[in-house]
């Protein structure tokens, strides 16, 4: 009994942790090395990995996402939580693939008609609402509580003025002052952040490749 239990454990560890780690490490290493090589074989491998396998993995991730979305919303409909919205949402999820499968997704198809006449206006409307929240938030939250906050506020006001037509009318140097803010302090900060992100990504990638980072496998459970 104990033997069969430990056997199951070994298989479970192999399937859940070791094999994904080996596959990940191997593919990561091969892709990394092939990126720097101009050899035809290396290029073929690189393109096969990036073009074919990537697309296949993406397709499967879409299936997982779609199933999860449908399950969550069906459960919501059963429980009566936001039922009308969830029904409309599910109708959209089922309708669009049907339209695409029957009439295609090319220009002028029913699929594109729904996209252009339903999704585009809805998204533009939702995004436009952001302007109202920005106005409200600026009134309530953008306050010079400290020196740092005052500097931030000053820079924000300068950018707001420079991105409208009054900047030019008020003083011809305003657009140049805004350019200086963009090109000197803002860019320095941006570069520092980008370098930090780059180093962080590099470190995490190496940790994943050598198997130290295991959170993507569900942690150490």
């Amino acid at each position, binding site marked *: 009994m104990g033997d069969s239990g430990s056997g199951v454990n070994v298989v479970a560890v192999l399937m859940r942790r070791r094999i994904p780690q080996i596959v990940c490490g191997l593919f990561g290493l091969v892709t990394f090395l092939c990126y720097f090589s101009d050899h035809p074989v290396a290029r073929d491998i690189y393109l096969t990995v990036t073009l074919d396998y990537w697309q296949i993995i*993406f397709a499967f991730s879409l299936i997982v996402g779609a199933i999860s979305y449908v399950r969550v919303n069906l459960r919501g409909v059963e429980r009566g939580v936001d039922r009308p919205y969830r029904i409309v949402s599910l109708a959209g999820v089922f309708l669009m693939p049907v339209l695409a499968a029957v009439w295609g997704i090319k220009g002028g198809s029913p699929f594109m008609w729904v996209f252009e006449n339903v999704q585009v206006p809805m998204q533009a409307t939702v995004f436009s609402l952001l302007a109202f929240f920005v106005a409200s938030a600026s009134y309530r939250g953008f306050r010079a509580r400290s020196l740092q906050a005052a500097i931030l506020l000053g820079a924000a006001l300068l950018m707001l003025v420079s991105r*409208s037509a*009054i900047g030019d009318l008020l003083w011809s140097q305003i657009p140049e002052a805004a350019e200086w803010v963009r090109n000197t302090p803002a860019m320095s900060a941006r570069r520092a952040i980008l370098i930090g992100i780059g180093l962080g990504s590099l470190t995490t990638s190496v940790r994943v490749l050598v198997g130290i980072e295991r959170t993507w496998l569900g942690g150490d459970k």
Partner: protein
Amino acid sequence: MSRLEARHWVFLGLFLVVLVSMVLQVDLGVTVSDDSRRMHDYLESLPPGSTLLMSFDLEASSLPEMRPLALAIIRHAVSRGHRIVGVALLAEGTGIGYRLLEQVGREYGKVYGEDYVFLGFKPQYIAAMLSMGESIKQTFPEDYLGRPYDSLPVLRRITNYAQIDGVISLADGSLTTHWIEYAGNQYGVRVSAAVAAAMVTTYDPYLASGQLHAMIGGLRGAAEYEQLIHRGGSGLRGMLAQTTSHVYVIVMILIGNVAFFLGMRKRRAG
């Protein structure tokens, strides 16, 4: 006045400001920035008949800002006699890109398939960028309308980026970064961009380092570009709404600060 009511007044005020500005339709002139002039000079410097790959990396939500930008760039390129190969690496850019190219094509009497073409959408943008570097035909065997690649005269001599004179990414997000990293750095194609105002600072370091050749941004960028090409559009028309709404936000910030300091003084006195 409760907080909720105050917020409603702020919303109503902004709505009225934008509504009146849009109704008035006053074209405000703007000073042309170096960034816009650089993009303009770049398209001017290309010999007529050059092929530009325009990538519609945008979503419907940013259309009010991105549409004027895209139209200004496409109009300039088409008026200079450049040929355009359109693609979309975000699904929502597909219908948008086709519509915009069709609109400008009609305006200038250009023929689809000969002067411009739209190849449609390809998922997984990094894979698509790398794939186009090897073979555009393999990546897009047919165009958006389902016509085979080889049947389109504009694509006849185009195999990969080597025959493309430049990529222009019309983006409201971070996809331009991938164009720079994969198409620009790996295949040596010249990458430029027209981006949403919120993304301008993201690309400033790339512009300064020369990895991004030229960039225009936001509604103001569109207005500046429309001035440069002497063709008014929704960029210049929208500048009044943008200006008044910015002034409105500035006034709100000032009122909020005055109220904050008065409240602080009262609390100290009490």
